[in-house]
């Protein structure tokens, strides 16, 4: 029987998940914010 690695995450793994998402989410959020500011000119 194949072990089922994805279905039983260790509790500590969720911290790693949070950190991994923050590592990509923060630059993305910055980029979205910068673009949003630029796009806001259209509505002025």
């Amino acid at each position: 029987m194949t072990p089922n690695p994805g279905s039983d995450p260790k509790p500590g793994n969720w911290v790693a998940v949070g950190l991994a998402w923050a590592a990509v989410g923060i630059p993305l959020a910055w980029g979205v914010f910068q673009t949003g500011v630029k796009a806001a000119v259209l509505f002025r």
Partner: protein
Amino acid sequence: MPGLLDRQRTVAGPGFNRWLVPPAALAIHLCIGQAYAFSVFKLPLTKVLGITGSLPTDWTQKELAWVFTLAIVFLGLSAAIFGKWLERVGPRKSGVVAALCWGTGFLVSALGVSLHNIWLLYLGYGVIGGCGLGLGYITPVSTLIKWFPDRRGLATGMAIMGFGGGAMIASPLSQALMDHFTSGSSVGLIPTFIVMGALYAVAMLAGAFGFRVPPDGWKPAGWTAPASSAALVTHGQVHVNTAVKTPQFYLVWAVLFLNVTAGIGILEQAAPMIQEMFDGKVAAAAAAGFVGLLSLFNMGGRFFWASLSDRIGRKATYAIFFTLGPVLYFLIPVTGRMGNVPLFVGAAALVITMYGGSFATVPAYLADLFGSQFVGAIHGRLLTAWSAAGVAGPVLVNYIRQARIDAGVPKAEAYETTMHLMAGLLLVGLVCNLMVRPVADRYFMSEEELARVRASIRGAAAH
């Protein structure tokens, strides 16, 4: 003992959390998404020698246009050629090669600027960087689909959303770096390219080393594959060499090609179009804001439509693109005649969500039709549709618009024919999509063939 980059070293152990894979994929896609922001370099590249203005010996916009075109062509070619290799060696090795190509592409481009040699720019960003784009684009796809058989659209949508979002980071970052490095004797491009190449290589390597592949036969706890094949979801596996002999592959190729070509019709002309259609009402800064808004919708559409496709099916999702799209393309010129800017912006934004959604939904469509074993390689070959659209779309749009203007049609109305043509392309896409049927049984691999392929992958990984 398998090497650090071997597939065998990336097989996940018990307790691995599959939600660690999408950020690894995003790290790669956010970097290669810079390609959409290449235009930020265009003006400085025309002033490398003149610094404050262009000299006759400086590069022209026409020469520089080839850099991006080459990158998109090599994206498609490398994805098509190396997709099969990726399935054999796994996402880590492929991600590392993509990182090295993308980073090296920037460094060679910096050398090209330093020597003012356009061929080095073509080689660096266009060829080497283009290969990094193609490999980076397909690297996470099959891994994500194998980890998320229950949410294929959501998983690939998250990664491919990064490609749309990458430009949003790259554009202000490039501008900030160029502003920082600009001096009286330089436009700041060389250090900007070096810094960006290094940053991207590091971030992509981090992503590549974050990948884990599930063991063969793994599935999420409590999940069973849907029993019905009504939604075109197969339980079998089609080899990449066989997939390209099926009509379904070419129909989905046409579906992607037509949708992307139509989307480029808006993207390519966004800033001049809004200014010319609403003459005097929309200033240059607002037009730039419109382009930014389209980027946001391009990114959001990738996530939204791909996730929705998990619920309503891929074919139904594309059917929405191909029925709603033509209506919007007919509506856009009408909004121009009405002078209704908000309606125009809304229609264009919705079109762009479907352009992005088309990219993000197609890997799941392929996995549904051909199975997940070779989906990365099959997706790689399908991306030639993007390359073809990247060349055909702008040529078509610019040629038709210019022909209309030459015929004496006012600029504001010259877009009408283009929009109607795009609507026509989408209707052809609708027919292609409707013709997609489940893949015939004769194309599927037998259990023995599949076991042999999996054993050979394990064997290759061990060496």
